[in-house]
């Protein structure tokens, strides 16, 4: 393992301290927690937005804290859901009297820890609602099992629900628009090389030089197929087609595109993927309203990418365009 770290067991605390030092006017760490909050939290009479999850997905989630997006992000250990007491601290820190909204990625651990925190907050009289994001089409959609994972499409939920809350939306309205995003966003990823959790010291899986893994999870969960590495066009084709097949996209529809790097894939390669994604959408008469290319939801130093499509309507377009001052998503 070769990493620029100090103590492998202190990477989360060290990172949060460094992050807040970089944005001293915008962010703060809630004392004695792993919660990063807006400097001005709680904002009175605004719905507070809380998200979070395991660390190692930077800039998710703390990079999305800021005016117009999240009010707080809870950082767990690397790739491990944060504990209920930490989520509860975040809820308390952002409760401005209009209720608190939780954006949870669909993993068993995240859902359980956030729900326990929501129960603790409800017992204290705080109004809490939640949405569970499950955009990863690599996994079968089933309520019988664990269901689909939440991956890069979650960033659209942060942005749009955050804008709704900033505009004065009620808890119910924020929930409704978040559910609309979840219903209309789909993603799929692939990896060229694994990543190493600092405290584990070993890579999450092994890929030969000529191999890639399609449908990887962002915590190194194995994907759906391991094959010989293909060209960017073939990779983009496979990911985008799976996404397009999953919900109805019609000619004339408008979408937001996100081509997300997993940690060590250069922007050059992401742009090459994006070229093909745009060509495929143009072929089908689907209009690209906005494109995001870069690192939004990473897996430490994993190489690879994911493609997300969000089907837009007027409300979603307006909220996507609204101002955001979050360090990792300025608009």
């Amino acid at each position: 393992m070769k990493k620029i770290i100090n103590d492998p067991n202190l990477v989360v605390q060290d990172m949060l301290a460094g992050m807040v030092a970089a944005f001293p006017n915008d962010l703060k760490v809630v004392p004695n927690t792993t919660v990063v909050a807006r400097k001005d939290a709680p904002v009175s009479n605004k719905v507070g937005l809380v998200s979070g999850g395991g660390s190692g997905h930077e800039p998710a989630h703390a990079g999305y804290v800021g005016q117009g997006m999240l009010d707080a992000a809870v950082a767990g250990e690397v790739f491990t859901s944060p504990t209920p007491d930490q989520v509860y601290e975040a809820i308390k820190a952002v409760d401005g009297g209009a209720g608190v909204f939780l954006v949870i990625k669909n993993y068993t651990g995240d859902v359980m820890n956030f729900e326990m925190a929501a129960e603790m907050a409800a017992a204290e009289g705080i109004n809490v609602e939640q949405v569970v994001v499950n955009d990863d089409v690599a996994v079968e959609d089933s309520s019988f099992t664990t269901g689909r994972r939440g991956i890069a499409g979650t960033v659209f939920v942060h942005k749009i629900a955050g804008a709704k809350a900033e505009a004065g939306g009620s808890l119910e309205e924020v929930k409704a628009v978040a559910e609309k995003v979840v219903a209309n966003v789909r993603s799929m990823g692939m990896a060229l090389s694994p990543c190493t959790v600092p405290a584990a010291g070993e890579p999450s899986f092994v890929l030969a030089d000529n191999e890639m893994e399609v449908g990887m999870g962002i915590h190194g969960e194995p994907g759906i197929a391991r094959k010989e590495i293909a060209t960017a066009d073939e990779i983009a084709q496979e990911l985008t087609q799976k996404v397009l097949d999953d919900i109805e996209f019609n000619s004339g529809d408008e979408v937001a595109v996100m081509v997300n790097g997993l940690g060590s894939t250069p922007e050059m390669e992401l742009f090459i993927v994006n070229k093909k994604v745009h060509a495929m959408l143009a072929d089908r008469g689907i209009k690209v309203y906005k494109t995001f290319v870069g690192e939004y939801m990473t897996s430490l130093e994993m190489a690879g990418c994911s493609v997300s499509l969000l089907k837009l309507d007027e409300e979603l377009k307006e909220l996507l365009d609204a101002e955001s001052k979050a360090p990792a998503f300025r608009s």
Partner: protein
Amino acid sequence: MELQVQHALNWIEKTNEKIQTNKDYLSALDRAIGDGDHGLNMARGFQEAVGKTTSSSYTSVSDIFKDVAMTLMSKVGGASGPLYGTAFLKMSMAVKGEDSVSHERFTKGVEEAINGIIQRGKAKEGDKTLLDVWTPVLRMLQEQSDFEADSLENTAKSAMESTKDVMAIKGRAAYLKERSIGHLDPGSVSSYYLFASLAEVLKEGE
């Protein structure tokens, strides 16, 4: 026999020893069908739990279980934190009000723990989760009228081993569907350590 305060303290310490010794093994099992953190999560949680129980003094088993529950809940995270935390919290409630714990009470505690795990995780026996160890252990306890260390150890062990041939329905391993077959469930292995440690404590206490 009945479980006394000292037995419960020894139980937690022995469990911690087994988990620390097998930390890398548990993580390796989780790397195969999950995300590779189960050993780290359990080692962090039980280290803290032992830190708490060895620095406090107790007059009831219930209080020990409660401290263990709270520590696991606030230190583990992931899926296993809320589940083990809930299990110990439910056991604590079930054995409350007694200085020492009879076999009957303990059995009730395990039953409540399982109900709590099901309520949180919505899994059932056979889904390739730690319930696949807890549930057979409960059935064995219900069939007997006193603690029997050997059958506890054997039941937990064979239940743990049988998770290998099962397809995961809940938890991260469920993403793999058929490909989860052939691998042990990491949570079931840590639950085996828990019950195997209890069996050792019972043997010493006889």
